[in-house]
């Protein structure tokens, strides 16, 4: 173990850990302010905000010799007997100087800046800046221009940390952003005719420590301090990025990536980032209905469990289509329920939405072609209940062979997912129960229509393409008229009270060996289910 001394406190770091001063100090609970440094990007040491005093302790005598000049902590490795001083007058002076410098030409237009409230410049100035402004320059230009479809640059707010430039060079490899001009006239820009339009472009907004790069989609829609953040998992593809859903009064304003070294590191793709619009789409289905003799009539949710059970028992042979949009818990509960009704019921894996090819970026981030969050999880559940996996296409082709009396379809797809012919086939029997979020050919033919939940309204766990299971709680309440699948299945199983995804997952982990790694609860960053397969 290597010992590092931070402000007089000793901390231990691993011998093979390569930490810089900022990271080592973080271990000791000391926050060293920084703009240009980001763990996922190369070190440039140019903002000079993380200046500290460093030295080396002689392990034999215990004597500390300090460097005469201040150094950037981001560039200084923490090794055995390294000494960092982050709170001396000299360091405070240096921080105050950098803060003063950064505000000389900054418009200080915080009242109309989207970043206000989560801005490093604000926070650091509050903590490390001078109480008075000595520069009598009063800039207020606030020039802005689009960098691409998703990002707006507010030129004068920029502190030239170049995180965004490095991101497009090192992570996406597309290099759209650059620095133009020199000295105090420097600006971030794109080359004319080559806008910032790669599939990870939205990340530069997260990287920007100040309000210079604004998310055009989010711009001026909400003050950040009104939003509540909920840890969640992106349902856009089988990568399953860890995200936070930021909402106010059940309206989602933006999604942000959440650091997870096992899955997405610090990034997420634009498709996922802006892929929440359907949650608040006015076309969402919100009325549970049944087809009566005189057309559709509404049904109360409280009556749904009994009604559905009656229908199913009446029918006898049941086929159940399990959507890969369901959570592990939902799929498990639904399968258990169906098995209670009909031990011979056919369990079918719903259609797997696939768009294009998997797309990887130089640093390894991958956008998967499989546009559903929980294929692995649902497959594992189906394996438990059904000796062979029946795919949706096989089921439609050999529908007469299976010949069910009742079909229950779970959807949750964002876009068209079923053809009119397939819908006709499914509707050829007496009872067709459909749970979905948008109208579809099969919804229109259903005898029982049950509006379902979108990803941010669900509670439970997804398993991504690399067998990483992540659990999450609901972020927003579903619209009136919708009952989240998990809650419905919980009731149908006759459980009391509110749906409890955690206890359900524990049950599943006991029942299905694939999930056993999740039995002790799931940490924030998820759990690797492969651990058990190896053992």
């Amino acid at each position, binding site marked *: 173990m290597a010992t590092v001394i931070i402000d007089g406190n000793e901390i231990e770091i691993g011998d093979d850990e390569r930490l810089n001063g900022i990271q080592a100090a973080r271990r000791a609970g000391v926050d060293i302010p920084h703009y240009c440094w980001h763990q996922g990007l190369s070190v*440039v040491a*140019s903002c000079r905000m993380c*200046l500290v005093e460093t030295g080396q302790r002689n392990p034999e005598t215990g004597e500390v010799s300090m460097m005469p*000049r201040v150094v950037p902590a981001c560039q200084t490795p923490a090794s055995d007997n390294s000494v960092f001083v982050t709170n001396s007058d000299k360091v405070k002076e240096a921080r105050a100087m950098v803060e003063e*410098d950064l505000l000389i030409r900054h418009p200080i237009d915080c009242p109309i800046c989207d970043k206000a409230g989560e801005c490093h410049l604000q926070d650091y100035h509050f903590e490390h800046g001078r109480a008075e402004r000595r520069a*009598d320059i009063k800039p207020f230009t606030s020039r802005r221009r689009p960098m691409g479809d998703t990002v707006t640059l507010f030129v004068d707010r920029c502190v030239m940390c170049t995180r965004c430039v490095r991101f497009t060079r090192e992570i996406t490899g597309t290099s759209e952003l650059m620095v133009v001009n*020199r000295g105090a006239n420097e600006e971030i820009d794109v080359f004319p005719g080559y806008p910032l339009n790669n599939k990870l472009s939205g990340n530069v907004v997260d990287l920007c420590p100040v309000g210079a790069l604004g998310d055009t989609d989010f711009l001026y829609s909400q003050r950040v301090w009104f939003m509540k953040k909920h840890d969640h998992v992106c349902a856009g593809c089988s990568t399953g990025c860890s995200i936070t859903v930021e909402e106010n009064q059940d309206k989602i304003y933006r999604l942000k990536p959440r650091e997870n070294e096992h899955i997405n590191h610090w990034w997420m793709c634009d498709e996922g980032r802006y892929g929440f619009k359907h949650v608040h789409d006015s076309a969402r289905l919100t009325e549970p209905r049944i087809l009566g003799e005189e057309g559709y009539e509404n049904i109360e949710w409280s009556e749904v469990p009994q009604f559905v059970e009656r229908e199913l028992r009446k029918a006898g042979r049941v086929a159940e289509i399990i959507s890969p949009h369901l959570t592990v818990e939902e799929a498990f509960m639904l399968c258990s329920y169906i098995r209670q009704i009909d031990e011979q019921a056919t369990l079918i894996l719903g259609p797997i939405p696939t768009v294009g090819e998997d797309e990887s970026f130089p640093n390894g981030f991958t956008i998967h072609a499989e546009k559903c969050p929980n294929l692995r999880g649902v497959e594992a559940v189906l394996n438990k209940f059904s000796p062979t996996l029946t795919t949706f296409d096989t089921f439609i082709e050999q529908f007469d062979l299976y010949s069910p009396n009742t079909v229950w379809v779970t959807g949750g797809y964002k876009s068209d997912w079923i053809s009119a012919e397939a819908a006709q086939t499914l509707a050829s029997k007496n009872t067709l129960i459909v749970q979905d979020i948008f109208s579809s050919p099969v919804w229109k033919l259903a005898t029982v229509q049950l509006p379902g939940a979108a990803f941010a309204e669900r509670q439970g766990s997804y398993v991504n393409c690399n067998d990483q299971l992540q659990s999450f709680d609901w972020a927003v309440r579903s619209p009136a008229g919708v009952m989240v699948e998990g809650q419905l299945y919980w009731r149908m199983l006759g459980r009391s009270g509110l749906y409890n995804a955690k206890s359900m997952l524990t049950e599943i982990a006991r029942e299905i060996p694939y999930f056993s790694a999740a039995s002790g609860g799931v940490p924030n960053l998820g759990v690797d289910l492969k651990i058990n397969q190896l053992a």
Partner: protein
Amino acid sequence: MAFEPVLLANINKDESYTRPVYESTGGYQAWRQALQMSPSEIIDQVKASNLRGRGGAGFPTGLKWTFLPKDHAGPIYFCLNADESEPGTFNNRILMEDDPHQVLEGLMISCYATGASTAYYYMRYEYPLAWGRTQAALNECYEAGYLGDNILGSGYSLNIYMHRGAAAYICGEETGLIESLEGKRAWPRIKPPFPAVEGAFRKPTVVNNVETVACVKHIMDRGADWFKSMGTPADPNNPRDPGSYGPKLYCLSGHVNQPGCYEAPLGLTARELIDDFGGGVWKGRKAKCVIPGGISMGILSADELDCPLDFSGPGKYKCLGLGTAAAVVIDDQTSIVDFLHNSARFFAHESCGQCTPCREGTSWALKMLNRIKAGRGRIKDLDLLLEIGNKIGISYGTTICGLADGAAWPLKNAIEKFRAEFEDYIKRTNPDGYMVTEPVIAMEEPVGSH
């Protein structure tokens, strides 16, 4: 014993820039001789001469070469820094225009010594004549077999590529130069790794100044002892002073009767340079101050003209160092405010903009000086300017490269050494407002102040 110019010996000959003229004075003998020696012998000789880099920092050249990794599989690159952008400096230009072969020969010997088989000749954009003549000289060398594959049957191969800069001061910083050479924005790199370990194209790289390699040629010709026979010996009380030896090209400009480039042993004083070489201050006036070595080195006041212009001299007078040994004389009729304003304008324009303190500090200083010049100065501004001068630079630790120190030194020297004149100027031009303080955002007001 009168000093015989060595570096400038040929510049006044007719067609001094051609190979025949150069060879008629013994040119390329050193190169032929060097190829007979082992590289380590050459490095030893350069080390023995105590040659220090002529580009500004005065780093010992032989020592720099030994930082290269031993037995490296290669390639090792050699960059010749001919991006001579320091205001007042033109010694490299004269060498490259009037004696380009001398520079090339020195460069070849240096490449051979360091094991580089590729050299990049990085010349600043503004030197078209030097560019043309160096290019022509390079062609002559290839024709004569001094360059190319298996040079003169020695088995050693060397190619030199010319690279023209795009007129940015920062490209004179060695890692800025390397970045620029690689086709990137000339933002100096963070060190370590130093170029000797990882430089151009991520390979070990040496960056040396034009005059430095020219000296290498003469050390090969005349030996290390000759080189050490002139200059200022090391200070025995300062173990970190390797001494200042050899001839040096002094650029003299400004308010003198005979401006020009003069060669003299290191260590002559500013006064000697002005009076003996420059024929004194022009128009019978007195010097107010002298820039010892390019504007970034700060200024010597009229009382400090006995400062020896060697590597350690100007530092004793609170200047940054010898720099490029480009002395600019400023007469006593010139306003120090104008001088500092001009200097600040240069650095605000040329700051590369990478590190916050330099980017914002230089521009803030210029804006303050603009205001002072416009008659709205305040005494308090001087303290702020001094603070900027004291706080930016690699010596304080707030920037990546040393050019920020160069921006800081004129500021702090001018204000420390001529504060009375600044105060006088402010009081004269802003008689009513010179004590006004700027608005304060948050201040506790004394009780009952309303």
